[in-house]
């Protein structure tokens, strides 16, 4: 259908891109209040609290999505989500170090 058309280009959501509170909540399909609650719990941090509207570094999007998945699917409270995320970060780092050590030759 659109296969032969000029390919679409997007933008990489990295540390140099920011999202507004509305953009972030839209992208995660949650209410603004849910993001505010995550900020209050220290799970995500706006790039600057000074401005009238919060801006978030776009690379935080996956973290917010994971947080919301854990919240809904595992029926955790936000403190539980925060703890799970910190432990997941640690597990991921340990797994990658383990891979490095176990790499076969």
């Amino acid at each position, binding site marked *: 259908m659109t296969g032969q058309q000029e390919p679409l280009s997007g933008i990489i959501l990295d540390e140099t891109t920011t999202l507004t509170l509305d953009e972030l909540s839209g*992208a995660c399909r949650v209410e603004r209040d849910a993001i505010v609650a995550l900020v209050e719990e220290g799970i995500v941090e706006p790039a600057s609290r000074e401005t009238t509207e919060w801006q978030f570094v776009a690379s935080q999007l996956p973290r917010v999505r994971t947080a919301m998945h854990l919240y809904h*699917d*595992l029926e955790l409270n936000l403190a539980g989500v925060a703890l799970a995320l910190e432990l997941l970060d640690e597990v991921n780092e340990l797994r990658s170090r383990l891979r490095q050590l176990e790499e076969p030759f």
Partner: protein
Amino acid sequence: MEYKDYYQILGVERDATQDEIKRAYRKLARKYHPDVSKEADAEDRFKEMAEAYEVLKDPEKRAAYDQLGANWQGGQDFRPPPDWDAGFEFSGGFGGGGAGAASFSDFFETLFGQQGGMGGMGGAGFRSRGEDHHARVLIDVEDAFHGTQRNLTLHAPEVDQQGHVRTRERSLNVRIPKGVRQGQHIRLSGQGHPGMGGGQAGDLYLEVDFKPHPLYRVEGRDLYLDLPLAPWEAALGARVKVPTPDGPVDMRIPANSRSGSKLRLKGRGIPGKTPGDLYVTLKIIQPPADSEKAKAFYQQMAEEFDFNPRAGMGV
């Protein structure tokens, strides 16, 4: 359509209490949640159990499901009996936002209708922005160095003029830019679900996943590579070719290099404003002693070197 045995999926008896169902779901969800689990089929397993729980946790839906009878087997070809849901009314929408909420099976949708609560939004004067769409795209490490294109087929629910929800297939040709990293999202504005009543379309978010590579391990911007060396290359120093996703480069191995030591090729990681580095871990590989000549050479080394590799162990 396949019959789904929701009790079997959650591993509970048909007469399980609501508490037992909740416990069973939570235990399985912690194990198979795709954000947590490393099991290969975690995502599919989790979707299945989220769907089972969606039905069994709700007494109304559970009663309706139970009415189908206990004689069905999971995977059996299934057609719902006419009027099967007479006398039941499913109140409330479905909680969105979870990892498993994206798509339930045909079996579920036939019995309980499409999720997402899009019905009733088609009225005149109602205008809303379309939902954002998330998809995952699998690329090779090399693609992050050169950029690539992917043809994606997306499935999006759409409400037709009669108010029925149907799935529409849409194919997109998307450019994956150079410099993209594992786990990053790419946003394509206006390529999500269409808006309602003339509202703006949502955005499409592509999550980038790297295929495992036989040579390189990727951490953020940096690449890691194990580089085999002959004992004499490590001992005497050498200039060797090192593979990179951008093609081979020359690297100088300093004399007296030890196995396991790490060298850095600056800027040879994933490209970007601050490009990553390529870390090379040296692995000394000894030639096999598989001929008389080779054995004689090892014998000679044993005699020439006054070397005890276990000296530090006091033996």
